[in-house]
């Protein structure tokens, strides 16, 4: 978001170009990563904790084959799923890194994402939860800022979930284990990292579903337009 213009109603410039590009690149790349990841998972649909884990070891989760309508490719091909996954992963990781650096430089983080004084007060957070539960979305000037729950989820995704999914992915690589042995200690072993990678992927799916729900409730045309062109129509204040 650019700094709010004094104008309250009408169109404002809401999302920067860097945010818009990154948003749509992520939409595509995460879609490829999730579906090809499920294809890879089908090669061994069991999850373990610790350094090792194979068929005769205790699995904390065993799933049936994930159906073809949600895997990439649609038929079982470990080689092709891996090609998709390993081609998309570095693009996704470096895009995140670039976005983080750029958002620090252009003060997107400081201006729009960092919590402001008073926002973390329990009373304020509770009020925000109540507003969400009653589907009372901010209007006028307040609609130009992220609310505290929005900030918390964006910070959680950008600085926790996405780095986590990348690092646990790298921990599964025997080459990266030699290059960065500390990742094994960070996650407690390759099989633990594989489990966390899987859990983080599904946590991102939950974020995606809530995100889509919020867009639908807040006015999908205006929201989607603002993420494509950057222009956002400020909702008029409730009478």
């Amino acid at each position, binding site marked *: 978001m650019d700094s709010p213009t004094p104008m309250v109603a009408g169109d404002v410039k809401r999302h920067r170009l860097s945010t818009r590009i990154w948003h749509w690149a992520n939409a595509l790349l995460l*879609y*490829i990563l999730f*579906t090809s990841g499920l294809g*890879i*998972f089908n*090669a*061994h649909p*069991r999850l*373990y904790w610790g*350094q*090792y*884990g*194979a*068929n*005769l*070891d205790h699995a904390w989760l065993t799933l049936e084959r994930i159906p073809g*309508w*949600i*895997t*990439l*490719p*649609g038929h079982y*091909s*470990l*080689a*092709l799923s*891996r*090609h*998709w996954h*390993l*081609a998309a992963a*570095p693009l996704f990781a470096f895009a995140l890194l670039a976005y983080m650096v750029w958002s620090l430089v252009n003060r997107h983080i400081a201006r729009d994402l960092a919590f402001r004084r008073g926002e973390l007060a329990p009373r304020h957070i509770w009020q925000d939860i109540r507003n969400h539960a009653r589907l009372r979305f901010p209007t006028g000037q307040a609609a130009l800022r992220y609310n505290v729950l929005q900030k918390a989820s964006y910070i959680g995704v950008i600085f926790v979930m996405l780095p986590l999914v990348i690092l646990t992915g*790298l921990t*599964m*690589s*025997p*080459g*990266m*284990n*030699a*290059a*960065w*042995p500390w990742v*094994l200690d960070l996650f407690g072993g*390759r*099989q633990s990292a*594989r489990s966390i990678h899987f859990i983080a992927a599904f946590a991102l799916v939950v974020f995606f579903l809530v995100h889509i729900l919020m867009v*639908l409730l807040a006015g*999908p*045309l205006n929201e989607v337009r603002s993420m494509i062109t950057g222009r956002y129509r400020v909702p008029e204040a409730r009478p």
Partner: protein
Amino acid sequence: MILTRRTLLLGATATLAGCDRLARNESFREALFSAENFHKWAQRGLMAPDALAREFRPDQISPVFRANGTANPNTPAYKALWRNGFADWRLQVTGLVARELSVSLSQLRTLPHREQITRHDCVEGWSAIGKWRGVPLKTILDGAGLRSSARYIVLRCADDMGGGRPYYESIDLADAFHPQTILAFALNDAPLSVANGAPLRLRVERQLGYKQAKYLMGIEAVDSLAAIGKGKGGFWEDHAGYDWYAGI
């Protein structure tokens, strides 16, 4: 705007079908497959040439070391070797070397060896930790005297993958001379079982399981992989589209 589950499903399926079509396009396929080059370049850049794979404590060894791929080559030639306790088995060292070698199992056992408790990572996703004992590949290559034109080491195996095509794999010299790259003849203090690659298998610890060629019959130094199999450097690389560089 009403998005039903059905519409979402149709949308997801249509997008995935689009991806599948894209993956059949030759130049897109090439671009997709070239990610391997990036990973090899990035990993080799990030790791020191002698960076070691993690070695584990004895209490971290898997209770059962899962065997995968061929469980028994079962060819008449292999069965004859096995019946005789591999006394007639020889490792043929050929190709771009100063001296071709033919090494017996008992000769290998007298050479200085290395012991390592490492993790075996299958491309499918599972891992098993085992204790390997074997002769560093470097010892054999130094003994044979690698010529300066050699770029890759090809591993020739005894198991028939169908239609009389034996398994093969290859590694480059960066991995061939790595201290943990050994020709292993023992797993968990016992001679290698048939399921795990008797009498000898490769351990190349910074890569995935399909590079760890079992039932070794020969190693060959070459300057290019073009004439090996279909040119991709390994059986699964040639027949299933796996990456040659299996560091990830």
